[in-house]
């Protein structure tokens, strides 16, 4: 019987193609990624059937944690710069350049105005430990939230796309939300956005029927 000759094949594989793919994907993810924004507190938002996306820019975002602490944040460094400069001159906070810079590049703030100087000179990690992070006061006697919104609105300079978003936790007590909404009402801001997660529309309800309405009509 003639011996079948097996060709001796190399076990080495050319990895160049695989490497190309890997780096292509890597480049894609690097360019497409926007890092999760730094959140002062963890907030679990409730879910709704709304599909409208939260815009990336032109947003004044109020984060409310489960104890009702309110944190303020806004996008756009030039606008943040104007906001903090205005607040500094108006309320004589005595912030230095470094503290203002911390505000401009930082994420959200949640303290009352008199503690803002100490608060801003701390690193974000230290803020939580210091106990100063007690939220922006919203009670009617000392409504600093109203001040923040008002100055932020000025800093935005009448931007027509500006939206006011409230991102609150599932467990946030309703009276706190009511206070915030009342604050907006007092400022003559009627349109708010509540940040939610997406959930499926329950089948058989009016919204579900309306959604597949056009499709089912064609079928008949």
């Amino acid at each position, binding site marked *: 019987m003639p011996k079948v000759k097996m060709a001796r094949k190399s076990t080495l594989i050319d*990895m160049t193609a695989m490497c190309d793919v890997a780096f292509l994907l890597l480049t894609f993810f690097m360019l497409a*990624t926007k890092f999760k924004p730094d959140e002062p507190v963890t907030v679990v938002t409730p879910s709704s059937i*709304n*599909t409208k996306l939260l815009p990336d820019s032109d947003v004044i975002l109020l984060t409310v944690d489960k104890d009702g602490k309110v944190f303020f944040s806004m996008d756009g460094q030039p606008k943040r710069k104007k906001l903090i400069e205005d607040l500094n001159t108006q309320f004589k906070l005595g912030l230095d350049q470094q503290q203002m810079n911390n505000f401009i590049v930082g994420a959200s703030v949640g303290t009352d105005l008199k503690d803002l100087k100490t608060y801003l000179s701390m690193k974000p990690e230290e803020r939580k430990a210091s106990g100063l992070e007690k939220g922006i006061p919203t009670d009617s006697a000392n409504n600093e939230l109203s001040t923040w919104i008002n100055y932020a609105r000025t800093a935005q300079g009448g931007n027509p796309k500006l939206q006011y978003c409230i991102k609150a936790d599932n467990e946030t007590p309703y009276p706190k939300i009511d206070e915030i909404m009342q604050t907006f009402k007092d400022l003559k801001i009627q349109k708010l956005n509540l940040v939610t997660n997406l959930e499926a529309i329950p089948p058989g309800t009016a919204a579900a029927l309306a959604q597949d309405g056009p499709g089912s009509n064609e079928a008949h």
Partner: protein
Amino acid sequence: MAELDTSSSGGGKKHQGTKSKKLSTRVDMTPMVDLGFLLITFFMLTTTMSKPKTMDLIMPKDTEKEEEQNKVKESTALTILLGKNNRVFYYEGLAQDPNASSDPEFFQATTFANKGGIRDVIIKKRDEVAQLRNAKGEPEDVVVIIKADDGATYKNFVDILDEMAINRIQRYATVDISDQDKQWIQQTVSANPGAGGAQ
């Protein structure tokens, strides 16, 4: 284009002293691929792909003038109260009649459950009201009045607004809770601690 001369040991140079070895131009790419995929994994995990959604909430202006305020008919109104521990209470109408509560069927407790919960109540009332005709002979719209107690959470509030969207209720309003409503909630809870149980 320049080319690398890899045939260093070409013919005719056999007797030269310096004889460079024939080296392979292949590089082992395995570690590079490893690194590549490691970074891909990192970026994939740190990326936020699903963006949060928002719910529009348009609040009415505070009007002081009596004539600018909308009047809600007793027959088209459904009042929903949000209580502690995810409880929901409701009654039909606006409870302007102080004797309304004498009817034991008047003040009811329910839950946020998908079946047999507040949704069924809203749908039932909506369909009932759609049978009614106003002065112009057009079908009436149900008006849902939402009142949240101090014990209610933000989740309850969003859930009930979501129910409005789910059932396509066009007219609803959030109103401050009255002492009478609070009292009714307390009575119902103390009479039946399990009513509208927590979920």
